[in-house]
C-alpha cells in the first residue's frame, strides 16, 4: 500500500489546521481571538500551498490510485487555497458577527477546502463521492451559518436537500459506471468501457453530468444557486461561487476525460447544449434582478456556461482555457463578492438601486466592483476578457462556431446588467454619506483579487504555460 503521506501533505496540513483551530478554541479558556484564528488559518493555508507546490509536475497516484498527484490537481489546490485565503481575510466582519462559533466557521471552511482539494485530485469513485459529500455538507452548514437569519437557514436547507438529491443522481450514475467497468478507478473505467459503449454507459454519463451539473450550477441543475447565494452569508456565497464551483469543474473534467474518453463525442454535444442553455438562462434572468447577490448568482451561472463552452471543445487547448477561465473567474468573482460584502455593510442593503452614487461614498470600492463587473462582462484589459478569448478560441478550433456565437452574444447581453450597476454607482448622485470601513485584511484580500483581475490577463502568457501542463496531465 503506497501510503506516501507527502503526496497528500497539503490536505493533511490544512485539515490539521482546521481541526486544531476547533480544538484549541474549545480548550483555551474564553476561546481564541479572531486574529489568532485567522493567523492560524492563514498559516495552515500557506503551509498547505507550500506543500502542494512541489507536487506540480509529478504524475503519480497515492492510496491505490484513489488520489491522483499531478499538475492538474496542484493547479486546483492552489486555486482553492488562494480563494479560501481571500475569503477568510475578507470575512473578518462575518467572524465578528458570529462571535460564538467563529473557530468552527473557520475550521469548517478549511475542512471544506480540504474536500475540494481532494475532489480535484480524486481518481476513484468512492473517494470522489466522499469528498463531494464532504464539501456539500460543510457548505450546507456554512450557508446556514447565520442560523438566526431565516434566509440563511433557508439557503442551508435548500442547498442541503438539493445537493442530497443531486448526489443521489450522481451516485446512481457512479453505480452504473462501476457496474460497467467492475472497478472504481477512473483510468480502469476508461479502459474498460472503451470498447463497449452502450446504453448503460450513456445513462451513467447523463446521470454523472447531472450530478456535477448541480455542483457547477449548469442549467437545468442551477435552480438552487440564486436562492442559496442570496440567503447565505456573503463571504460564504463568494466561496461557493468560486471554490465550490471550480471543484465541480475540476472533478467533472477529470471524470469525463479519464473515465469517459470513449464517449467524448457524445458528452461534448451534451455539454455544448448545457453550455448554451446555461449561458443564456443565466444572463437573461440576470437582466431582471434587483438584488446584487442574486444578480451575481445568475451571473455566475452564466459564467459556468462559458466554462462549459471550453469543456465542450474537448481538446487540451480547451481544458487549458477552462483552467485559465476558472482562475480568472475566481479572481474576478471574489473581487466582486468581497466588494459587495463591504458595500452591503456600508449601505445596509443588497438592492442594486441602493448602490447609487457609491462612487462618491467609497470610490475605491466602486472602482473594485466596476473593474470586476467589467471583467465578468469580458471587457479588456481585465482577466475576464482573456479567459473568454481563450475559451472561445478553443471552441472555435473544435468547430463549435454556433456555440461561440451564442457565447459572444451572451456576453453582449450580460454587459447590460453589469453596466447597469456601474451606471448606478457612477452616474447617479448618492443618497447617503459615509465611507465603508474596511479592515486591513479585507482591504488586502480585495486588493489581491483586483490585482488578479487587472494582471492575470495581461500576464496570461505565463499562466497559460502552467495551464497547458495541467491540462496535459489529464491526458496521461
Amino acid at each position, binding site marked *: 500500500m503506497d501510503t506516501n503521506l507527502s503526496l497528500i501533505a497539503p490536505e493533511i496540513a490544512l485539515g490539521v489546521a482546521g481541526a486544531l483551530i476547533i480544538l484549541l478554541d474549545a480548550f483555551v479558556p474564553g476561546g481564541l481571538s479572531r486574529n489568532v484564528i485567522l493567523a492560524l488559518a492563514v498559516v495552515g493555508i500557506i503551509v498547505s500551498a507550500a506543500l502542494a507546490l512541489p507536487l506540480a509536475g509529478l504524475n503519480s497516484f497515492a492510496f491505490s490510485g484513489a488520489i491522483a498527484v499531478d499538475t492538474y490537481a496542484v493547479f486546483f489546490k492552489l486555486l482553492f487555497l488562494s480563494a479560501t485565503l481571500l475569503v477568510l481575510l475578507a470575512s473578518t466582519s462575518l467572524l465578528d458577527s458570529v462571535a460564538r462559533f467563529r473557530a468552527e466557521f473557520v475550521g469548517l471552511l478549511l475542512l471544506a477546502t480540504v474536500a475540494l482539494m481532494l475532489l480535484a485530485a480524486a481518481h476513484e469513485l468512492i473517494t470522489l463521492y466522499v469528498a463531494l459529500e464532504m464539501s456539500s455538507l460543510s457548505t450546507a452548514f456554512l450557508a446556514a451559518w447565520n442560523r438566526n437569519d431565516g434566509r440563511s437557514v433557508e439557503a442551508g436547507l435548500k442547498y442541503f436537500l438539493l445537493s442530497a438529491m443531486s448526489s443521489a443522481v450522481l451516485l446512481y450514475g457512479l453505480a452504473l459506471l462501476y457496474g460497467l467497468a467492475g472497478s472504481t478507478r477512473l483510468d480502469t473505467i476508461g479502459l474498460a468501457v472503451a470498447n463497449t459503449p452502450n446504453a448503460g454507459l450513456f445513462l451513467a454519463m447523463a446521470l454523472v453530468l447531472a450530478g456535477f451539473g448541480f455542483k457547477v450550477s449548469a442549467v437545468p441543475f442551477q435552480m438552487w444557486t440564486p436562492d442559496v447565494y442570496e440567503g447565505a452569508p456573503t463571504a460564504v456565497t463568494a466561496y461557493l461561487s468560486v471554490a465550490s464551483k471550480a471543484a465541480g469543474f475540476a472533478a467533472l473534467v477529470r471524470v469525463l476525460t479519464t473515465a469517459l474518453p470513449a464517449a467524448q463525442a457524445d458528452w461534448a454535444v451534451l455539454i455544448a447544449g448545457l453550455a448554451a442553455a446555461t449561458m443564456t438562462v443565466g444572463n437573461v434572468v440576470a437582466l431582471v434582478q434587483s438584488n446584487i447577490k442574486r444578480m451575481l448568482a445568475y451571473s455566475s451561472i452564466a459564467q459556468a456556461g462559458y466554462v462549459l463552452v471550453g469543456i465542450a471543445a474537448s481538446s487540451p487547448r480547451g481544458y487549458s482555457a477552462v483552467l485559465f477561465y476558472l482562475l480568472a473567474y475566481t479572481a474576478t468573482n471574489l473581487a466582486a463578492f468581497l466588494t459587495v460584502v463591504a458595500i452591503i455593510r456600508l449601505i445596509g442593503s443588497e438592492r442594486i438601486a441602493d448602490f447609487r452614487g457609491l462612487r462618491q461614498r467609497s470610490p475605491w470600492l466602486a472602482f473594485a466592483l466596476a473593474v470586476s463587473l467589467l471583467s465578468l462582462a469580458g471587457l479588456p484589459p481585465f482577466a475576464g476578457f482573456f479567459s473568454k478569448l481563450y475559451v472561445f*478560441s478553443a471552441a*472555435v478550433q473544435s468547430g463549435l462556431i454556433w456555440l461561440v*456565437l451564442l457565447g*459572444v452574444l451572451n456576453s453582449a447581453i450580460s454587459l447590460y446588467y453589469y*453596466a447597469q450597476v456601474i*451606471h448606478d454607482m*457612477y452616474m447617479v448622485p448618492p443618497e447617503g454619506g459615509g465611507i465603508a470601513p474596511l479592515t486591513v485584511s479585507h482591504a488586502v484580500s480585495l486588493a489581491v483579487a483586483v490585482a488578479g483581475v487587472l494582471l492575470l490577463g495581461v500576464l496570461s502568457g505565463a499562466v*497559460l504555460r502552467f495551464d497547458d501542463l495541467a491540462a496535459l496531465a489529464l491526458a496521461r
Partner: protein
Amino acid sequence: MDLLLNLAIWLPLAGAVLIAVLPGNADRSARWIAAVISGVALLLALALAWGYDPNAGVASPLGLTSVPWIPQLGIGYVVGLDGLSLPMFVLNALLVFLAVLISWNTTLRPREYFALVLALETAVAGVFSALDFILFFLFWELELAPMFLLIGIWGGARREYAAMKFILYTVAGSAFMLLGIFILYLASPAHTFDMLQLGSQRLAPAVQSLIWILLFIGFAVKVPIFPLHTWLPDAHTEAPTAISVLLAGVLLKMGAYGILRANFTLLPDATHQFALLLGILAVINIVYGALVAMVQGDLKRVIANSSISHMGYVLLGASSLTAIGIQGAVFQMFTHGTITGLLFIMVGLIYDRTHTRAIADLGGLAARMPKIAAIFIVAALASLGLPGLSGFVSEFLVFLGSFPVWGVQTILGVFTIVLTAGYMLWVVERVLFGPERPEWAHLGDATGREMFAVGVLVAVIVLIGVFPAVLGNVVIAGTTPIALRY
C-alpha cells in the same frame, strides 16, 4: 521610431493613471496634466508622421514593434503604422488634444473626466496601430468602458440610455467580429493573428465570405452602417461636446478603418463578392442619413445624422474597389473627422452659451457671436463639400472613383450633396441668421482658447482642401497595397 510609437500609445494611459492617483483636491491640475500629456502625445504623433517614409513598403510599417505576448495562442504585441493608419493616428492625437482644450471648464468631476479621455486616447491609438488582430480587438473593446462612462456621466438628459445603447451595440457587433477573427486565425495556414502575415495569404473564397460577414457586422456597427446605426444619434446627442468630437472624429473611423484594414486587405475575394452590397449600403447610408438629418429638431442630431450620411461616402469610395475610390475613402475618413469634429465643437460652443440645442429656440446668433458664426459656417460649408475645404477633396475622389463602377449610387451620392447643403444651410439660417434676439444679448463670443482649438481644425480643413498633397502621399502609401488587390 518604435519607441516613439509605443510612447505615443501608452503615454496617455500613464497620464490617466497619474491623474487618477493624484492626491487630494487636484481638480485644477488634472486639466493641465491632460493638456500637457495629450499635447506631448500629439507632438509624438506628428514626429512619427514627420519620420514617415511613404516608400517604405508594406512589410516595414513605421515604428514596428513585435513582441511575443501569449505565444500559446500566437498572440503578439505587434504595433506599427502605415499610410492607412498614420493619418488616423495623428487625427486621434489631434482631436484628443483639442477635446481637452474645449472641455477646459468641465466642473463636474474633472479628474475622472480627463483621466477617461486620456484612457480613451490610448485605446483608439492602439486600434489604429495594432497589427495583431487580437491586440486590435483588445484595444477595440478597451475603448468601450471610458466611452460608456464619458457619455453616461457627463452627457445630456438621456445620457444613461445613450451610453447603454452605445455599449450594447458595439459589444454585440464586436461579438461577431471576434468570431470572425477566430475563424480567420483557424483558416489561415500560418495560424497567426499577425495582420502582416495574414495579409500575405489568400484563403478559400467560401471561408473568406463567412469571415467577411462576421467582421463586417462588427465594423458596421461602429461606422455605423444602416440599419445598425441608431445608437449614433443618441450617443452623439447626449455626449458632452468633446466626446462627440472624439466619437465622430475617430471612433467612427475605427469601423471604416477596420473594413479597409481587415475586410479589404485580408479578404479580397469576399470583398469582390460583397462590393455591390457595400455599395448599396453606402448609398442607403448617404441618402437616408441626410433625409433623417433634415427632420431633426436638435442641432446635434442633425450633425449626428449627417455624420451617418458622410460615413456613407467612405463606404461608397471603398466599395468601388478602384484605387481612386479607396483613396477617396481614406481621405474622407480623415476629413470627416476634422469637419464633423469642428461642427460638434461649434454646436458645443453655442450650447455652452445658450443652453439649448433646439433649433426652434435658437436664432440670430451671428449678431452677438460673429466668430462662432463664421467658423460654424465654414464647418457647414466644409461639410457640404465646398471646394477649397477638405470635404470636397475627399468626396470628389470618392465620386471620381465610384462613378465608373457604381453609376446610380454615385448619382444619388452626388445628389445628396444638395440635400446636405439643404439642411446645413437651413440650420445656419435658423440658428445664426435672422433677427437678433434679446435673450442672447448678453452672450459673448468665442474665447481665445476656444478660437485656438477651432482655429487648428479650420487650418487643417483649409490646408487639406487647398493642398491635398499634404495628406495625399501618406494616403497613397496606405492605399496602394489595398488597391493592388483589386
